[in-house]
């Protein structure tokens, strides 16, 4: 079994690196960690970086997860190859670009580009955002799935994820005590469906709602509160149509033995207990 420790970073291709950087810093509130000629790295917490925009196709999206040991990488590679996934062992140069010691890359059954990384860099300096968004860190991703049953099996049986709740067939998966680190949303494409950053409080969610609304950032869902994770949330659109989320107050599942996943309806009531209606394609019937 592939033991995922944490979600580590996302890498997003863009044709407009400058525009994406403007959004990531002035609107989203991340801090520039490093600028290369054709890639910019952003930090959101104590880690070296958690988001990287690079010059390339906006369809080129990668989500990375950390594994604990170097041997885990070779074991994972062997297991994935046995299951018929093509595995690419990262070169030293590629690893350096990702600020990790070693990594492997593969595609999940839907075709999402996934990287498993070992020893991603932490930062010696604490995160100081470009604006006071109250971000406490990069926390989870929504992944597209073209077959939710197949992909749930991949993440829970090949990898160590557990189902925390389901909204319709969309599984919210945990790999530690946080309610979900991966959420699988049924759709007809591969790619990252949304990127979540946690903020300190519900007040921060609401402040950002007003801040971003004033700046004409398209709001696509919320402010609201998820009945599943109990988090207060706000979803808005960033460069290349990527959906970003702020949330606060995500439920923690401490008792693995007693916890039982729940089924919620795939309609606005399953997504928000306050009555907000999503404008996000993957959250609608």
């Amino acid at each position: 079994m592939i033991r995922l420790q944490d979600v580590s970073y996302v890498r997003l291709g863009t044709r407009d690196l400058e525009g994406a950087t403007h959004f990531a810093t002035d609107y989203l509130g991340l801090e520039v960690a490093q600028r290369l000629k054709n890639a910019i790295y952003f930090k959101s917490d104590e880690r070296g970086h958690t988001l990287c925009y690079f010059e390339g196709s906006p369809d080129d999206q990668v989500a990375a997860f950390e594994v604990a040991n170097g041997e885990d990488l070779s074991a994972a590679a062997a297991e994935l190859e046995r299951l018929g996934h093509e595995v690419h062992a990262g070169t030293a140069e590629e690893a350096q670009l990702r600020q990790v010691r070693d990594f492997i890359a593969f595609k999940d059954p839907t075709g999402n580009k996934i990287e498993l990384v070992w020893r991603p860099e932490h930062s010696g300096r604490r995160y100081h955002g470009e604006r006071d968004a109250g971000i406490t860190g990069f926390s989870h991703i929504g992944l597209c799935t073209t077959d939710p049953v197949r992909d749930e099996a991949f993440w829970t049986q090949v990898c160590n994820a557990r189902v925390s709740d389901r909204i319709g067939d969309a599984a919210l998966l945990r790999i530690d005590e946080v309610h979900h680190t991966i959420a699988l949303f049924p759709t007809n494409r591969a790619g990252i469906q949304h990127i979540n950053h946690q903020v300190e409080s519900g007040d921060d969610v609401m402040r950002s709602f007003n801040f971003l609304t004033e700046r004409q950032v398209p709001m696509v869902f919320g402010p609201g509160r998820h009945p599943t994770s109990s988090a207060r949330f706000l979803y808005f659109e960033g460069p290349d149509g990527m959906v970003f989320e702020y949330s606060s107050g995500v439920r923690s599942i401490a008792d693995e033995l007693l916890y039982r996943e729940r089924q919620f309806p795939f309609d606005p009531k399953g997504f928000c207990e306050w009555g907000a209606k999503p404008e996000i394609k993957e959250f609608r019937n």
Partner: protein
Amino acid sequence: MIAIEQLRYVVLGTANLAAAAQFAQGTLGLEPIDRTPERATFRSDDRDYTLAFVAGEPATQAIGFEVRETKALDIAFDALRARGLRAARGTADECALRKVRDMLWFHDHSGNRIELVVRPMNSGWRYFPSRDAGIKGLDGVMLRSTAIKKDENLWTEVLGAQVSDWAGDAPYLKIDSAHHRLALFPSKKAGILAVEYAVESVNLMMRNYYVLQNTQVSIMHGPGRRPASEQLFLTFAGPDGVLYSFVAEGQTADGDVVRRPRQFPAGPQGLCSWGSDNKIDEFNRAGTR
């Protein structure tokens, strides 16, 4: 100086009693109590009623505060007359209509009618709301003032209120453990600016936000958080030009500790720490006299 026990009720004149009653029941979700062709009252908590609509001139408004004894009415009467304010004892009919044992009414320096009442009726039956808005009770009133300093002094020197904080020149007035039950906002005219109902939690407040949006109620300010009281608020338009708010959370006094009043900025900056949209004139001009 007298002591006010609690905020009791708001009386509002309305040009359309049926529409106002529909608003109280459908939008606020209050429980209808008494209904005559001239008057409709609504319950929000264990008080018999906290909102009364009266058919007629919308300028006919009153706020009721409870005092413990009839003696307090005598003391208040003398002090109010000494300030040159109009004041009179309520008649038996007026008291019966309000379901109180005794009453003194007066007009503040702006012309707002305030009623001090003794032994107002409580309900023996619990509050049963018309819709699940999560209302816990009448929480406060925002009042316009055309003579802000004199009205503030009236409340602090005669009626025993304390200033919790100011936003610009607008004082938040404290009479019990809540941060405030009354706030005075400088304005060019008198009248009740907003009637505020407490709801259980942020979840109920935000649920109401979407209910109001879906029913085309005009949101005037919020959802937001008040820097002074730390209350969550959502202010929206009701009938006859009166605003209503749902509020939640907020500071309460810690025992008998008297906190120093603080000065917050005038205008939207001092009234919302979330930066919410404000459409209320008085809030844009809270710093002007």
